[in-house]
C-alpha cells in the first residue's frame, strides 16, 4: 500500500492537478456560499464536462468542490444568519451572534480552520482505515439504524433549554412533516393533499432553506437597516487581543470530528445532521452551556468541524463497497464511472493510483482551505456586507428563488420555501428552538422506517431490536445520554428551588 500511496502522491503533485484542486476549492466555496445551490448539483453539472479530462484532474476538481462547499456555507451563515446550505444551520447559532458583536472576522476564521481540520481528519480516516470501516457499515441493519436515529433524536433533550414544551412541539412538528409522502413500507400516500409533487416527501433542502434563510430575510426587511456593515468590522486582519484562533479547542474539534466521521460513514443519515449532533454534544459537555447561542466560538467550531468531517468519510462505503451513502457520494460514484472506474474492493487493487490519488486530493483540498478560505474568499465575500441590509434583502430573495427553482423547475418548491420561511419567522419571534425541528425532520423518518422494517424482518419479535452487539452498544449510549440529561435536569430543579428558598429567607 505504501508504494501505491507514494506513486499516487507524485501523480497528484503535477501542476495541472494542483490547478484543478485550487480552482475546485474556490468553486466549492462559492457554491457553498450561495443559498439554494448545493454540492450535488454543482458536481452533477461538472461531470459531463469531465469526459475529456484526465481522471485525477476531474477528481481534483470534485474533491475541491466537496471540501470547499463545506466551508463556504458558513460565510453567509455567520455574516447574514442565512446558512449557505442546510448543513450550516448549526453554524448560525453562534456564528451570527459573534458577527453581531463585531467579531465576524474571528468567527469566519474559526469556521475556516475548523472546517479544514474536520475535513483533514475525515480524509485521514478515509486513507488509513477505509476498508475495515466499510465492514462496520454492513453491521448496521434496520434495528441498528433505528437505535441510531433514536440516539440522534434523544440529543434533542439537550437542546430543549429553558422551555421544554416549545422544544417538544418543534420536534413533533418536524417528525410529523417527515411522514409526508409515499410510505415506503406499504405504498400508502400520507398527507399529500392530491399533489404528486409531495409523493417523495417534503424536499429537505427547500424546507430548511425557507425555514432558515427566508425567515431571516423577512426579519432583515422588517428591521430595515439602511446602513451596511462598516469597514472597521470587516477588517480581517488578525486582532491581537483575540489570541490564537483555536486556543483551547482541541477537545471540541476532536469530539465534533469523530461525530462527523461516524455520521458520514453510515449511509442515509447525512451531513445536515452531523453538524447539529456535533453542536448538541458540545453544548451537552460544556460547563458554560448557557453561553451557547450567544456567540460562543466553540459552537461555531463544533458545527463547522462536524459538517466537514463527514465529507471524506461518506465516501468510504462508496469507494470500498460501491454503496453510495448519500446523494454526493452517489454523484461522485457517477464521476468515477465516467472514467471507467468501478467502485468496490477491486478498485483498490486495479486502480490504486486513482483511488489513493483521490484520497490524497480530499486531504490536499482540505488543507488548501486553510490558505484560500482564510485569505482570499473570506475577504471578497465579506465585502458584500458593505451593502445596506435593505439592499441585501431583495438580492438574497432573488438568489434563493432562482437557486431553488432551477434545481427542479417546480414552482411548488418556491411556495414551500416561502411558507416555511413564514413558519421560521414565527418560531424566531416566539422563541421556539429550531434545532429540534430539524432533527425531527431528518431523523423522524429514519427512525420510523427502520423500526417497521426491523419488525417486518423479525415478524413482530421485539427482541430482534436488541439482538446484535451494535444494537446493545447503541442502547447503552442512549441510556447514558438520557440519564445524564435527567440528572442535570433534577440538579437544576433542586438548585432553583433552593435558590428561591434562600431568597425567601433573606426577605424575611
Amino acid at each position: 500500500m505504501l508504494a501505491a500511496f507514494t506513486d499516487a502522491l507524485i501523480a497528484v503533485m503535477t501542476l495541472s492537478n494542483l490547478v484543478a484542486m485550487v480552482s475546485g476549492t474556490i468553486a466549492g466555496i462559492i457554491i457553498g456560499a450561495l443559498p439554494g445551490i448545493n454540492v450535488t448539483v454543482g458536481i452533477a453539472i461538472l461531470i459531463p464536462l469531465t469526459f475529456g479530462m484526465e481522471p485525477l484532474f476531474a477528481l481534483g476538481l470534485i474533491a475541491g468542490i466537496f471540501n470547499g462547499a463545506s466551508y463556504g456555507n458558513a460565510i453567509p451563515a455567520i455574516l447574514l444568519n442565512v446558512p449557505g446550505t442546510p448543513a450550516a444551520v448549526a453554524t448560525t447559532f453562534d456564528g451570527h451572534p459573534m458577527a453581531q458583536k463585531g467579531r465576524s472576522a474571528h468567527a469566519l476564521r474559526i469556521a475556516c480552520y475548523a472546517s479544514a481540520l474536520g475535513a483533514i481528519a475525515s480524509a485521514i480516516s478515509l486513507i488509513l482505515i477505509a476498508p475495515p470501516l466499510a465492514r462496520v457499515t454492513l453491521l448496521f441493519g434496520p434495528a441498528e439504524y433505528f437505535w441510531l436515529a433514536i440516539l440522534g433524536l434523544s440529543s434533542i433533550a439537550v437542546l430543549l433549554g429553558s422551555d421544554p414544551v416549545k422544544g417538544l412541539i418543534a420536534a413533533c412538528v418536524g417528525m410529523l412533516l417527515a411522514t409526508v409522502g409515499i410510505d415506503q413500507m406499504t405504498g400508502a400516500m400520507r398527507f399529500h393533499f392530491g399533489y404528486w409533487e409531495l409523493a417523495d416527501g417534503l424536499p429537505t433542502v427547500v424546507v430548511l432553506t425557507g425555514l432558515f434563510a427566508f425567515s431571516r430575510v423577512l426579519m432583515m426587511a422588517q428591521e430595515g437597516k439602511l446602513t451596511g456593515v462598516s469597514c472597521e468590522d470587516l477588517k480581517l486582519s488578525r486582532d491581537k487581543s483575540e489570541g490564537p484562533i483555536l486556543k483551547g479547542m482541541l477537545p471540541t474539534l476532536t469530539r465534533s470530528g469523530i461525530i462527523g466521521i461516524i455520521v458520514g460513514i453510515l449511509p442515509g443519515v447525512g451531513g445536515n445532521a452531523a453538524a447539529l449532533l456535533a453542536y448538541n454534544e458540545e453544548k451537552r459537555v460544556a460547563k458554560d452551556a448557557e453561553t451557547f447561542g450567544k456567540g460562543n466560538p466553540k459552537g461555531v467550531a463544533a458545527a463547522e468541524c462536524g459538517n466537514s468531517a463527514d465529507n471524506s468519510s461518506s465516501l468510504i462505503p462508496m469507494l470500498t463497497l460501491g454503496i453510495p451513502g448519500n446523494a454526493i457520494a452517489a454523484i461522485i460514484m457517477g464521476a468515477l464511472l465516467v472514467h471507467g472506474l468501478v467502485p468496490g474492493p477491486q478498485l483498490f487493487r486495479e486502480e490504486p493510483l486513482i483511488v489513493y490519488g483521490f484520497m490524497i486530493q480530499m486531504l490536499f483540498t482540505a488543507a488548501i482551505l486553510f490558505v484560500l478560505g482564510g485569505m482570499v474568499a473570506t475577504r471578497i465575500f465579506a465585502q458584500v456586507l458593505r451593502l445596506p441590509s435593505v439592499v441585501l434583502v431583495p438580492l438574497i430573495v432573488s438568489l434563493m428563488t432562482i437557486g431553488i427553482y432551477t434545481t427542479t423547475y417546480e414552482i411548488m418548491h418556491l411556495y414551500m420555501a416561502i411558507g416555511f420561511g413564514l413558519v421560521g419567522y414565527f418560531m424566531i419571534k416566539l422563541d421556539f428552538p429550531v434545532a429540534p425541528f430539524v432533527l425531527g425532520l431528518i431523523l423522524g423518518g429514519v427512525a420510523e422506517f427502520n423500526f417497521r422494517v426491523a419488525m417486518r424482518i423479525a415478524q413482530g419479535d421485539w427482541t430482534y431490536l436488541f439482538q446484535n452487539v451494535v444494537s446493545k452498544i447503541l442502547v447503552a449510549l442512549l441510556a447514558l445520554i438520557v440519564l445524564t440529561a435527567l440528572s442535570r435536569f433534577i440538579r437544576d430543579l433542586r438548585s432553583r428551588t433552593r435558590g428561591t428558598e434562600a431568597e425567601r429567607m433573606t426577605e424575611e
Partner: protein
Amino acid sequence: MTFRSAEVMAGLMLVAFSVFAWREAASIRGDAAFFPSAIIVALGFFSLVYLVRSVAAGRRTEAVFERWWIFVAALAISLIYANAVAYVGYVTSTVVFIPVMAWVIGFRRPAYIAVTTLVYLLCVYFMFEVVFRRPLPSEMLLELLRSVR
C-alpha cells in the same frame, strides 16, 4: 400585539393544526397511520399545555411584530416574484423586483439600486448559464417578440 397574546394565538393555531392533522391521518390506510397518529397525539398534548400556560401564566407584555406591514409587504412581493420568475421569466421579473422590494422596505436611492441590480444580474447570468449550465426560466417578453416577428 403583546408577546403574551401572540403566544395565545400560536397556541390556538397549534391546537387547530393538531386537530386538522388528526382528521387527515384518519384517511391513511393500514399501519402507515400509526406513527403519524402517535406524533399528532403528542403534538396536540404539548400544544394544549402551551396554550393553557400562555393563557394562565403568560407574563411577557413586550410588543412583538412591530412594523408588521413591512413584513406582510415583503412576503406578498416575494410570492408575486416567485410566480413571475416561473411565468414571466427571470430577468424581467428581477429587474422589477429588486427596486420595488428595496423601495418598499425603505431604501430610496435610484442610481444605487439600478447599478446593484445590473451587477447582480450579470453575476447570476454568468454563474447559472455559463458556469453551472442551468437554464434560467425563459423570458416571456423575448418569446412574444420572437413570435410577433
